[in-house]
């Protein structure tokens, strides 16, 4: 109950401040202190967004970006679970994963862009590679931390019931480390989202599709500032939806319900 109350309070506070910001924005835009091309009014932004939705353009680009990030995210999640499981099963592999993570984790995806372009070109494959790079290392780090934090009692109880090594990992270690997996997913998502938008801006469109990053970048060329803000609005919206309705909802239905956090 208190949980619901506090989340309702949070939404109220947010709505309040958003309203204030929007009003301030509109006053600034209407005051004429800045040219319209730099500081468009809310109505212009809404119209740009509406036009773009009607023409289908922004939906197309958003869909393109979302499909890419989901693909990359799923690949990374599975690969991270696989690599972490191998690492806890085998000393040699553990050393390898540890070293790879230490090297690759501090490397921002964008820093790898030139290299990735040389290796994989400027197509969707390169974007997937950047997303995977952004997600997989924090995922592995978190999963490994989670594995190490598991109470030995769970594993011993499992061994006592006759579980083999594979089932110990699948049935015990992975669910037991879910809080860590979740925080790895959050970090990974944020990183991947940034890397994706940046990469799309640099790669441009393949045919008509270039993603949200490309959409925003393109509006600059046309000096369509309201259109740029429309793109930013969609990015913020997706960010909030993913955090509040995907991650938070998943957390609510799993680790919170189980009293694990």
């Amino acid at each position, binding site marked *: 109950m208190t949980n619901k109350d506090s989340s309702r309070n949070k939404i109220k506070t947010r709505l309040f401040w958003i309203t204030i910001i929007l009003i301030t924005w509109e006053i600034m835009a209407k005051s004429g202190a800045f040219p319209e091309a730099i500081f468009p009014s809310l109505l212009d932004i809404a119209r740009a967004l509406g036009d773009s939705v009607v023409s289908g353009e922004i939906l197309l680009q958003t869909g393109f970006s979302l499909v890419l990030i989901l693909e990359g995210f799923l690949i990374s999640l599975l690969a991270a679970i696989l690599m972490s499981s191998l690492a806890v099963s085998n000393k040699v592999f553990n050393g390898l994963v540890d070293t790879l993570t230490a090297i690759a984790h501090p490397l921002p995806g964008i820093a790898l862009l030139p290299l990735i372009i040389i290796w994989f070109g400027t197509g969707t494959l390169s974007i997937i590679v950047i997303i995977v790079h952004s997600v997989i290392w924090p995922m592995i780090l978190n999963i490994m931390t989670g594995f190490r934090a598991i109470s030995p009692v*769970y594993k011993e109880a499992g*061994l006592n019931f006759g579980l083999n090594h594979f089932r110990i990992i699948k049935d015990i270690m992975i669910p037991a480390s*879910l809080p860590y997996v979740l925080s790895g997913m959050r970090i990974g998502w944020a990183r991947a989202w940034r890397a994706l938008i940046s990469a799309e801006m640099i790669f441009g469109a393949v045919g008509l599709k270039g993603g949200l990053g490309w959409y925003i970048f393109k509006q600059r060329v046309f000096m369509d500032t309201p259109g740029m803000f429309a793109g930013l609005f969609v990015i913020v919206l997706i960010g909030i939806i993913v955090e509040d309705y995907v991650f938070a909802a998943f957390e609510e239905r799993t680790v919170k319900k189980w009293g*694990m956090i």
Partner: protein
Amino acid sequence: MGNDLKDEEDNFRDRAVTIRLRSVSKYYQSSQATLRVLDNIDLDIYQGEILAILGPSGCGKTTLLRQIAGFDHRESGSLLMDGQEIVKPEVKRIMIFQDFNQLFPWKTVIQNVVYPLQVNSIGESDAANNEIALQYLKLVELSGFEDSYPHQLSGGMKQKAAMARALTLKPKVLLMDEPFGSLDALTRISLQNLLLKVWRETGVTIVFVTHDIQEAVILSDRIAVMGRGTVGIKKVIPNLLDRPRVVGVAGYAEIYGYVYSLMDINSER
């Protein structure tokens, strides 16, 4: 007194030995020294008995129980169950830990109890396994809490659920490591009674580790008293008080006093 006990020990002579320890040694290596926690331990555990392992904390009770469970490597000695060397944990010896958090928190109570059945493909269907699990939850008086998650249970209820989960696979031996040690006194008594009921109804052999003399006397058929240092098992005392037992029943004071005298409680002065 000593003579009485000798006679009483004969009562156990013809009982079948389920687990036999001979010269079992277990050391822990630290940077400075080797800690010889168990040094040449000999012990027989009889089928169907409740054997209490009693000793001050740090004397090696958990280490001994984990050896019997098969969790840890040992330096030397032989540990046989029904004539076969114990080398790894098995479903015929199930451990119940001291830690209240031994149920899997991501499973409900019934899912926890069903899980070992699924792993070992016991029932013919999920429904059959569910039926078995419900029976054991009833046995431990936890009916109505099937769909609770472990974090919603009290410590005593968690230990009851752990007992149900341990019993589903019909183990020959239950290994219990101070399972009621952190409970309040009343809950502890009620769980002791529950354990005795479970023991009567299942006939399972129980090795019960405790540092509480009263608990050992109330529960056990025999008490293995361990001492500090590398003393190992000082003495195994038969405990033939009539059941049901309560504190203060005829003969209680004698056996309590005898065990007390073996525990070196004042030796640290």
